[in-house]
């Protein structure tokens, strides 16, 4: 992780959209970490250092709202 790059956590269960978002954001010079469900995303959030997070509302295991609250 380079210091000057934005680091984002992305939680999206739709793999196609997730993959595209990652590609798009990375091509814009932003570093993205993609998680498929709420629980993994929460664990990833605890272990990582992110500038901000983007959650889908409908997520397996834990929805976006609950994840944001947590």
């Amino acid at each position: 992780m380079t210091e000057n790059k934005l680091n984002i956590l992305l939680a999206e269960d739709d793999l196609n959209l997730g993959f595209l978002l990652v590609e798009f954001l990375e091509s814009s010079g932003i570093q993205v970490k993609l998680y498929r469900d709420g629980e993994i995303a929460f664990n990833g959030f605890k272990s990582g250092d992110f500038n901000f997070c983007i959650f889908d509302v409908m997520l397996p295991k834990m929805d976006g709202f609950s994840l944001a609250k947590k």
Partner: protein
Amino acid sequence: MKKTVQKYILGFTLVIVFALLATQVKWIIYSIKFQEKVFQKSVSLALNQTISNLTKNKGICSVMQQCFECDTVKLETQLTSSGVWNKIHDAINEELRSYDIDIDYDVFIVETVSDTLKSIQKEIRKGKYYSQCLNEVIGKTGYELVVRFPSRTKFFLEKTGLMFLSSVVLIFLLIASISYLLKLYRKELLIAEHTKELLNNVSHEFKTPLSSIALASNMIRKRRYSDNMKLENYADLIFNENKKLQHLVESLLHLAAIERNEFDYSKEKLNIHKIIKDGISGVEMILFEKGGKISVKFDAQQSDVFADKLHLTNIVVNLISNAIKYSKKLPIIEITTKNIDNKILIEVKDNGIGIALKYQKYIFEKYYRVPTGDIHNTKGFGIGLAYVKKVVEAHDGKVEVESELHKGTVFKIWLPLLN
């Protein structure tokens, strides 16, 4: 409308109905009293007129005067034998009828000084007896003509009873129709809520593939790809997402068909076991992704039914998909069949999250989705089970659910066998 407002309106309506009931009862009591007063007035007028008529008839007067000269013990015999008693009766009868009083009555003459009168006077005061002084007819004081109506109470009840009964019936009908309207209103409210939820779901389901297509095409447009491989990937993605959209539109059209009750069933001889196997192969991919297992146990000896292949396969797919969708652990699904009477029973059992008892009666309703609180992690429009029920019933079958929260659910479908 908020629930509190609803409660206030309901309370207000009930208060109005009870106020109406109270007013009605008050009016009925008032009416009975009024009838009594009219009756009393009519009888006293009739008696007055009778005395006046008797006074005018000199023949009757002289006979009566003669009778009243003799012993009071023999008075009644004398009056009867001389035919006067009948004439008095006739005169009273005629007058009462002119006042529309056509009920049985007793007539007697009492001495105002005798003991018998004292008790009668009490009753007269209570309105049970009606009396008129005989002075002018017999030319001396101390005698009264008394009339009593034994069926007076019945007469009043007959007159007011019908009114009372009709009031009670009408009020009862009013309460019944209000509660029915309330039930309908609640149902409409529920449908409105479900429709809102459906719209939310639909827009979410459409947004995801649309966003993917927008993003992928944007990447291609701005040439943000490193090699042809990536380009192909984006193209595939657009193609697949487009397919997803088509599938969604089909689902919505399907939903519209359910809404309009427009289904064409082309029924033919089908083997349920084959339909189930077809259904399973349709969901194998999703099941494989989730790492679940599916087992079948076909105990039914007879498994031929007269049904629509497409719809029947759809309902099998629907039930298995639900079993996969609503499970937090690895889905283990069991499908069994058996013959009961002239029917085949198909059971789809899962180890999923289960459905709480209080929601079980609603799950076959259109757009209904079991509330999950703030958890928005299962996609769907809430039409699958409504469709299952519709199809099963169109095949003269029935569908039931047995479920325990956190343990699993069993859907039971009965279909009549082909004879």
